[in-house]
């Protein structure tokens, strides 16, 4: 456990990490308003935004770390903690709500043993909710790693989850 904790503390701060982040910074060099795209690309690398990486971005772009933290915590898409290998987003939009989206979320919470917003202990799944996926025709829906599953019923959930290791 201790070694894992130390690992997390250095993620984003090694020379190799800096080299990767430099490529992103280079891509947006000289572009106005590029902080959000830089953060989006960085999150694509790690699945979340490691503290060390944010500190490095602050240093390189001249933005105070407080301002970056402000942006990161404002948008729901950014995450400050490591996430699971598979990201499940259960839609809580209106169409899904009236067609039983809440039951689907409850079923998922039971099946994974974690509440929405949390990651399973084995880091296999992170369970999240989303305001609307815009696939209302298939309501209720959820997305796993960007793949949309529709017309859900509690019964077919285990079968779907089994596909993601």
């Amino acid at each position, binding site marked *: 456990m201790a070694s894992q904790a130390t690992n997390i503390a250095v993620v984003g701060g090694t020379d190799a990490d800096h080299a990767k982040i430099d490529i992103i910074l280079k891509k947006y060099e000289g572009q106005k308003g590029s902080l959000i795209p830089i953060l989006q690309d960085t999150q694509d690398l790690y699945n979340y935004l490691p503290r060390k990486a944010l500190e490095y971005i602050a240093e390189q772009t001249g933005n105070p770390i407080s301002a970056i933290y402000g*942006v990161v915590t404002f948008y729901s898409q950014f995450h400050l903690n490591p996430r699971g290998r598979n990201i499940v987003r259960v839609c809580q939009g*209106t*169409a899904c709500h009236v067609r039983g989206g809440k039951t689907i979320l409850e079923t998922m919470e039971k099946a994974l043993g974690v509440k929405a917003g949390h990651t399973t202990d084995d880091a296999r799944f992170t369970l999240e909710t989303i305001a609307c996926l815009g696939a*209302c025709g298939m309501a209720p829906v959820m997305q796993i790693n960007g793949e949309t599953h*529709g*017309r859900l019923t509690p019964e077919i959930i285990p079968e779907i989850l089994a596909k993601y290791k």
Partner: protein
Amino acid sequence: MMQDTRIRADVLVCGGTACSASGSQEVMKRLREEIAKKGLSEEINVVKTGCHGFCENGPLVIVYPEGTFYVRVKPEDVPEIVEEHLYKGRVVERLLYHEPTTGKSIPTYKEIDFYKKQKRVVLSKCGAINPEKIEEYIALGGYEALGKVLTTMTPEQVIEEVKKSGLRGRGGAGFPTGMKWQFAHGAKGDKKYIICNADEGDPGAFMDRSVLEGDPHAVLEGMAIGAYAIGADEAYMYVRAEYPLAIKRLEIAIDQAEKMGLLGNNIFGSGFNLKIHIKKGAGAFVCGEETALMASIEGRRGMPRPRPPFPANSGLWGKPTNINNVETWANVPQIILKGADWFRSMGTEKSTGTKVFALTGKINHTGLAEVPMGITMREIIFDIGGGIPNGKKFKAVQIGGPSGGCLPESMLDTPVDYDSLTKVGAMMGSGGLVVMDETTCMVDVAKFFLNFTQSESCGKCTPCREGTKRMLEILNRITSGQGTETDLVVLEDLAKTIKVSALCGLGQTAPNPVLSTLKYFRDEYEAHIKEKRCPAGACEKLAQYFITEDCKGCGLCARNCPVHAITGEPKKRHVIDQTMCIKCGTCMQNCPFKAITKK
């Protein structure tokens, strides 16, 4: 699409988000394989299109020239379509759409009720062309309007034409588009910007996504015309990050248009330049508000600021900026091409043209419908939408998303136009229509929307940050059976105060779902408060569990009840003590005879 003379049939497969999720990619792959096996690849063209709007019945496959319309096609159905239809010329009856009331099969697109009453202007090319090929857009008159504007019209003439058309903002508020352009045109400044608001955040709305996925060039062309009119040379397209397919199609479209000299530098050799950038949102509903959206493009927290100054004078990076929604932009090329009078011939006097609605919820035909303004809600829900499924009764329609309101049956004959809807306490909004039946609790719906706006509140102004939170607490009390009659008075008072005092559109309209349900469904609130009962049976904490006559007296429920609220003799019907029951539902889950009901 049909340039090649050897081609005798085109098979269109819907590649929209809903159809893709139900397996249209697999269907398309299989089609190509089977067609190749039969040696028909030379004469039959398989095209991946944008959304057809009939999402409930996806994946959709349409065979042209006849327009045969196949629904819910699975990969294993493909060999039969190829063998029977494409090889032998016989329509596969079982895959046609069947009228839900009569069971009759309907062979072509145009004969289906869902499409009959529609007037597809913005959606005219969605589903008809391959959105990833600019040539197909051009073949249907694409970029002709931009050419006309750049070579024969002055910016003033363009603005005049748009003003004359009566086009109003399709994002929700309905501000006259031509007027907005005029302000930005008249603003002083050497640098101006154009923005397309594609941050379609309303839950239950997916019109803009379908337009971007199905006909991205129409939006780009509209933006280019607007840029010429106001004098901008740079534009931003702000798209929700949740719409990866739309973003991909836009990237392809911009790239193709730039290569052909239809965007970028020296467009049509006229000396007019326009660079369009795509900005991905990062998940914040409030960014649909124009000043918040601009803050987000600038790389900051997306929080709104007070207006004036309006964006037309001081917008993105302090420069004059004109911002319109996706559907508004998509209307522009057709107005230029066919004229303001043609546009005015559709809709009503003050709400001209058409509007795209996303029909969802408890309705037979979930999907996208484009109708002339002024049509009644009843026509949209029952004629186009096919009514309520499973023989249930219509209760309400929610229009306008979290900013809109719920209308009851008695209001269904209200014409759908900006002013009539505002008058009855709803609003046009971006076009989400969520239909609810008798099993939907209206207090729960109000709570659902308020919960949404409350968690999306940016926290900048007190009425929205604190006010919506207090309102939500009251609604939570009511739905859990702890509401009092004074709660209703306070709720209404808070709602009215927030409406007039919040900083931006999000806060000002957040109370609408509560106010409209209080207006039309007050009896439901009262039933929750006075009788501690949810008439729709939807509020978990007010539900009561009963054991029916089907009980065999096995005792499983009594053994599993965590509070020992169930008693009864073996082999005899058991009883739940309502005063002890904590409504956990464990008994219902454990009953092997389905003898426990919830009311």
